[in-house]
């Protein structure tokens, strides 16, 4: 029920309440400047200004008379796309954060505090305290532990900033070591996993690398190539290629989100509350690790050679326990 109103009304109201004090502080400002500052489309700014300009309070007469309403310089707005507030009503400052808004930013900061740039613990703590004081209620109790940021982040980030290529030894999911030369675009993370997205000169394609599979990493003095800039970093972390293989798996409906990275598709029915999904994978070596880590949850149904790869991987793992005694820690 609550929040059931047209999605976006909360966002629009927040924008109206934030825009008024901003416009007050700027005697004359163009729609373009406002749209850039708030990071919203110019049309959203115009819609908001059109609404603000005819809004106000009921007033003593309860008739929303002219003096009870905001007003703008209409000629400037309509002819020059410039906003000039000429009459103000009721509000003159930005609203406080809600408990959950403050919590969302604080938890985001807790996560970022593991990045090397943010090693200044006091600065982060002071910023969190400011957010807490700026909220209308105690921030919701959402907390995030820092992840172990790696020294490689510092090297990669400096290379992104300086626009130089980096070089490292990479162990891929097939178990092969290769020397890679990469134009680094950015460091991406998903929860506690850190990735580098960039242009791989060995493969001549955009690639995503796990930071924890890199070793012997260093920056070169070779500038990143223009060509890689043309390719442009995409937002997605993983992307399919034509040579990808389809694998059908069966799993409980509730476990489907666990495979989100593999873009599962298809709703082919299966008995009970288990469903079948099709994943696209580059090869079966990542799949065998994924499935073995979800024992009793995910089963590969087809193709048969994918089942064999998974079976052999798990069997080889299980066999190691037949060789060794539980007690011989030192071997």
């Amino acid at each position, binding site marked *: 029920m609550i929040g059931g109103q047209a999605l976006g009304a909360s966002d629009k*109201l927040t924008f109206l309440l934030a825009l008024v004090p901003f416009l007050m502080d700027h005697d004359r400002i163009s729609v373009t400047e406002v749209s850039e500052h708030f990071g919203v489309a110019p049309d959203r700014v115009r819609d908001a200004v059109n609404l603000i300009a005819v809004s106000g309070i009921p007033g003593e007469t309860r008739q929303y008379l002219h003096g009870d309403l905001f007003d703008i310089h209409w000629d400037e707005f309509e002819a020059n796309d410039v906003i000039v507030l000429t009459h103000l009503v009721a509000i003159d400052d930005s609203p406080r954060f809600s408990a959950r808004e403050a919590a969302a930013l604080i938890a985001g900061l807790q996560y970022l505090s593991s*990045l090397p740039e943010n090693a200044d613990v006091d600065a982060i703590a002071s910023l969190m305290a400011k957010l807490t004081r700026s909220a209308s209620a105690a*921030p919701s109790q959402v907390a995030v532990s820092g992840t172990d940021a790696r020294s490689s982040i510092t090297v990669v980030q400096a290379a992104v900033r300086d626009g130089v290529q980096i070089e490292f030894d990479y162990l891929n999911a097939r178990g092969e070591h290769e020397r890679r030369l990469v134009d680094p675009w950015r460091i991406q993370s998903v929860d506690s996993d850190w990735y580098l997205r960039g242009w791989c000169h060995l493969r001549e394609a955009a690639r995503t690398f796990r930071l924890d599979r890199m070793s012997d990493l260093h920056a070169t003095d070779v500038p990143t190539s223009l060509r890689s800039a043309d390719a442009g970093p995409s937002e997605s972390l993983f992307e399919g290629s034509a040579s990808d293989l389809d694998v059908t798996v069966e799993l409980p409906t509730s476990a489907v989100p666990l495979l989100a990275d593999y873009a599962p598709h298809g709703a082919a029915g299966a008995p009970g509350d288990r469903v079948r999904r099709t994943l696209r994978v580059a090869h079966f070596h990542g799949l065998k690790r994924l499935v073995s880590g979800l024992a009793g949850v995910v089963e590969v149904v087809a193709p048969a050679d994918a089942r064999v790869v998974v079976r052999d991987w798990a069997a080889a793992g299980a066999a190691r326990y037949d060789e060794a005694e539980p007690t011989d820690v030192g071997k």
Partner: protein
Amino acid sequence: MSSTTQKNSRVSVEERLFSLVLALIATEIGLTKADILSTVQGYRQRYLPGGDNSSLERQFERDKDDIRELGIPLEVVEPPDDPGSNHHLRYRIPKGLYELPMDVVFSPDELMLLKLAATVWREGSLSAESRRAMTKLHALGIDSSDPVLGYSPSLRVREASFEPLSKAMDRGQVVAFLYLKPGEAAARRRQVEPRAMVLHDGRWHLFGTDQDAAATRTYLLSRIVGPVVTVPGASFEAHGEGQGQTALSELEALWIANVAVISARPGSDAALRLAKRHAPGEIPANADASALHLNYTDLNVLADELAGYGPEVLVHSPALLRAAVRSRLISVRDAHTDSDSDVNPHPDASTEAGA
């Protein structure tokens, strides 16, 4: 311009909410519900003098909730001469509590950091809330410093239980859910006062008071099966700040106390990745060179992860972890073994590394 905004067209939701906020800020003594419904833009168009306005009243109740969810302090004032009377309740928004405190100032560097923090959430309510918080911050007109190049951090909330649990926590509602503990045959119903939602070691946990046990407990969201429901009529007083940190410290202490000893096959994915998590501290004298110490909070979560490494990892201790990894591998092996196929029970594991 015309002096009134009387329109024939429907008033949009945001116009009605904006007008309500303006009216309630402008009033010192507060407005009664009848004042609001009969005079405020968006209500007055639908108000029937002397008629049945019950649907409009329900609309007002929902609007009040929506406005409060945005952190706007909408107050209810009881008339001093007529306490307890519902009819004469007055509503208002005290300006001092509405506005960002004057003495809180954000520097351009801080704003840059907050912008990045807001992008951490890509989906769900935390993403919408970060976005609205940033809109409010932009009202201050501060230009942020140039962003630190090259970062795109993100946190996910994949568990469907996160939203209902955090909502119940904020409203002080008791929740019930089925929780499946590894090793237990069936999920058991838990009735819990949610105190904090925490992300530790890459997993979301609920920290709360288990009402049956009358003690605090920490639950992995991934083990909650089925829907989270609020218990009708059951509410609790907020436990105050610091709950999240308490929960994190408890998990951290557990993480430090639990140490697994494993070996990773040299040169393998496991060796490379797990070595970077090797726990600092003493290595037992009898351990071999490839032995690694891993801290963990939950034995079954670690067992899942280590099973994924297949033959690259051998668990030495604790014995329970060793057994858990082994049984997972056996179960995966058996689930993928077709009865008619020719199975080699001891495939040459060493070929895997170069496959």
